[in-house]
């Protein structure tokens, strides 16, 4: 049995692991990947100590720091069940089962999906969730950006110099991203904004050929070869049904990163902590490990 199992190896999980290792806790890290969303980020200018660093570089630094300690790391492993029985938390994954005295959930967030027909089928066949990665492949093509917040506007701006025409498909009455980005988009002749518009389906044969939309009660088709889905994030948590969450599916934690279940802690973007930033997730990761350590010291295990 472990002292601690950390679920997730993004900024929060990795920082927690380093702190826990330094407290000589017997720990296991289980994660789908290393670096989390930080590894996906483009340029980072606000992680203290680095005036400029790219997401992949910072993620590599995090990993290097983690590997300095003899921490058991199970990569490519996903948690499917988390249960507390008596004093013991059992963690079931797609590859194994483990028991621990404490658990830290730091599984983060991922892109929200549209949940319409054709989405899964055409993923990477014209439909993408990563404008930073895939925008250059749509040079001279017509594309649709779905969403209206900062990430959608950021994707649009990246596409301005690349695509032939851009349709922004927005379910709300107006764009919500930063004014400075909206202005840049309004000035462009190649962008068409479709407000009050709902996506019904992704269309295509081998690759994407268009999006079926509903606008003012009428169904239409926007013909395009690329679709960029930028409709926000959802938490990576399908396990632990008894853990209290807010309306956004974020785990509720107190200032000590405790959840409603003693011995189960959480940190980073998966929690209801305000502001989702790499440096905040890392800070929360330090705090949560110390909280788990305190719990181990104070708690008598039967």
């Amino acid at each position, binding site marked *: 049995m472990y002292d601690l199992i950390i679920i997730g190896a993004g900024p929060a999980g990795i920082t927690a692991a380093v702190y826990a290792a330094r407290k000589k806790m017997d720990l296991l890290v289980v994660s789908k990947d290393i670096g989390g969303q930080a590894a996906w980020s483009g340029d980072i200018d606000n992680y203290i100590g680095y005036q400029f660093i790219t997401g992949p570089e910072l993620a590599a630094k995090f990993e290097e720091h983690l590997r300095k300690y003899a921490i058991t790391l199970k990569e490519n492993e996903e948690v499917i069940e988390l249960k507390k029985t008596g004093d013991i938390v059992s963690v079931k994954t797609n590859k194994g089962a483990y028991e621990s005295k404490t658990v830290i959930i730091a599984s983060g967030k991922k892109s929200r999906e549209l949940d319409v027909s054709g989405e899964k089928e055409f993923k990477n066949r*014209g439909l993408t969730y990563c404008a930073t990665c895939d925008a250059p492949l749509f040079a001279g093509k017509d594309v649709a950006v779905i969403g209206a917040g900062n990430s959608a506007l950021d994707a649009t701006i990246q596409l301005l110099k690349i695509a032939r025409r851009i349709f922004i498909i927005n379910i709300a009455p107006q764009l919500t991203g930063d004014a400075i980005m909206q202005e840049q988009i309004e000035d462009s002749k190649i962008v068409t904004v479709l407000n009050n518009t709902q996506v019904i389906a992704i269309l295509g044969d081998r690759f994407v050929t268009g999006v079926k939309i509903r606008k003012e009660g009428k169904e239409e088709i926007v013909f395009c070869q690329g679709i960029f889905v930028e409709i926000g994030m959802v938490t990576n948590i399908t396990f632990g049904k008894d853990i209290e969450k807010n309306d956004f599916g974020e785990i509720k934690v107190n200032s000590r990163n405790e959840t409603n279940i003693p011995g189960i802690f959480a940190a980073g973007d998966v929690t209801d902590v305000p502001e989702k930033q790499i440096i905040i997730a890392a800070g929360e990761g330090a705090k949560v490990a110390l909280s788990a350590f305190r719990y181990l010291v104070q708690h008598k295990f039967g």
Partner: protein
Amino acid sequence: MYSTPTCPYCIRAKQFLTENNIVFENYDVSTEHQKAEEMVQKSGQMGVPVLDIEGEIIVGFDKEKIKQALGL
């Protein structure tokens, strides 16, 4: 490797190959359109990175598959 300069997973894939002393040729599909088409032909999809390891096509930075194909 077929990649774009901005894609974080492409950067990580390149890091991984370099760390393991693997010599590889990189095509920037954001500028080399012929190579972009070749990539779509080979992989049947448009996501980057795509690795062609002696005929074995690997889509994405799939460390396990890459290790296996390279015998690491």
